[in-house]
């Protein structure tokens, strides 16, 4: 009898805790409710009804904002820049980490430290000389300017994560292949690469969030025709709509939705990736 009431009480406490936590979450995310509800109201309704749900959902707002900010070319730019940068980072960092994590020699441990030190370099330190360098290389205002900068910028963290993982792979695997006469390149692509999918996902997610949401780098190095979604939104809001909140938020939804959708679809990997990225770094 007593045990049962105790259980019931514990159950009630759990429900109460869950409800309390849910309430906290609602308060915490209420700014996002404002964003979505305002974006989907007509301008006239927003003037009367600032907090409620829209009486009639105005999908037209988002379509209008997307058209005026030239959403689709910007989306393509963002996608191109993110995909190419991430592929370059994954390929070059995993190749380098294979050497750094599995070969012995003072050269390698020193080079590892050399990469590690890069994690302390703030972009604000390198951005002004980069401005000149990018100009000299003739890639100013093209996608390649930011792709090169991202590849270099995320290299240290990628190498730290991947090298750490390489050290946990049992050495017999690739040694056996090498003894059987496989070249190092063959061993890397056929034996090592399939084993490092997990850390590669971590690096990919960590870089994706950083690159997709970045404001400063594309603001400095990209021209209008190559511009990313985030800076396109920034220019759109700055040029026309500083006080037209329905348009500002409709445009914001366009700019944030691609990454948010990917996040909601695989949030488990996202959180794991972001935590591992931080912890290993």
């Amino acid at each position, binding site marked *: 009898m007593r045990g049962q009431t105790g259980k019931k009480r514990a159950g009630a406490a759990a429900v109460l805790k869950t409800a309390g936590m849910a309430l906290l979450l609602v308060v915490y995310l209420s700014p996002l409710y404002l964003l979505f509800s305002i974006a989907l109201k007509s301008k006239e309704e927003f003037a009367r009804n600032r907090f409620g749900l829209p009486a009639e959902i105005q999908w037209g707002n988002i379509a209008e904002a997307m058209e005026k900010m030239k959403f689709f070319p910007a989306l393509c730019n963002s996608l191109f820049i993110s995909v190419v940068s991430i592929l370059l980072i994954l390929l070059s960092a995993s190749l380098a980490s294979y050497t750094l994590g599995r070969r012995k*020699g003072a050269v390698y441990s020193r080079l590892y430290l050399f990469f590690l030190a890069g994690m302390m370099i703030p972009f604000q330190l390198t951005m002004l000389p980069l401005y000149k360098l990018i100009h000299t290389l003739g890639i100013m205002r093209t996608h390649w300017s930011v792709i090169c900068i991202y590849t270099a910028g995320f290299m240290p963290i990628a190498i730290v994560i991947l090298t750490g993982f390489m050290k946990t792979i049992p050495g017999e695997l690739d040694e056996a292949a090498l003894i059987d006469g496989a070249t190092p390149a063959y061993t890397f692509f056929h034996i090592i690469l399939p084993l490092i999918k997990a850390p590669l996902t971590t690096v990919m997610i960590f870089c994706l969030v950083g690159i997709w949401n970045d404001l400063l780098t594309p603001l400095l190095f990209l021209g209008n025709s190559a511009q990313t979604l985030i800076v396109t939104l920034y220019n759109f809001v700055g040029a026309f709509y500083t006080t037209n909140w329905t348009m500002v938020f409709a445009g914001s939804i366009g700019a944030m939705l691609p990454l948010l959708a990917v996040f909601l679809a695989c949030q488990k990997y996202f959180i794991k990736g972001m935590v591992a990225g931080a912890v290993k770094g």
Partner: protein
Amino acid sequence: MIWIWQRKRQINKSFWRRESSYLLFLLPALLVYVVFSIYPMFSSFYYSLTNWDGFSANVRVIGFGNYIYMFKDPGFRKALSNTFLFVLMDVVLQNVLGLGTALLLETKLRGRNIMRGLFFVPVVLPSIVVSYIWTYIYGYNKGVLNLFLEKLHMGPVDFIGDSGIAIYFVILTGIWQWMSYRMVIYVSGLQSIPSDIYEAAEIDGARPFQKLKNITLPMLAPAFKINMILCMIGALKQFDLVYTMTQGGPGYATEVIATKIFREAFDYSDYGYGCAIGVVLFLMIMLITVVTNWFFDKREVEI
């Protein structure tokens, strides 16, 4: 002696030959990293000692003039004190709120994984979207907060337009956005504590508060360390929110180091001075990383 030297050379030669393909593997990463990170870093050290204006080829070395000017420049002092305020408030509030939420989330809850995912949403939002939402909430004319104050027959307050208080509200926005990042790191720290320690403590009759103080917090030391470093470096480099919410204004009231560098270079064409401020930022980040690591490593031995 000569024999040893020759032998060493032989080993060295075979090392380079044996390792040739592995060295080749390193090449792409090394090349990109040196050209687009290391070389610009050293350029910045050099340019910080010059009067470079970004355009003219005529660059003159002026010694430590830029660094000396920094001490006299009230704009830099303001940016520095605002940045320190950012660091202080971020470190305290993000960690207190993040740890508190993490502890609540790790109790017996239904749907805690979904909740954790939803809490994390602000972290994946672009900073500029966050800054638009909060600019609206803080708005002087019919912003959310001022509508509430109006109901209470107070205000209106110009939250991010009043130079005395603007910086605090920009900082609070960042705390709203990043606190959940601190939270998930604490959650993963909490999950790595083996449950038998708690069971042993319960058998010994430990009360909840004692468990928190004697087990949970000490075992979270690695998570604390990571969060401290990330929080401080993030605050030192803060650019997006300030740039989009206030542009460093009104006047210079919310200027931080990153916006100061941007302004010096792209508004005043004083690239040399911008580089010098960048060098100071770099030194601060290095100092914080080294000191925090040293502090926690020393304590870990004690525990």
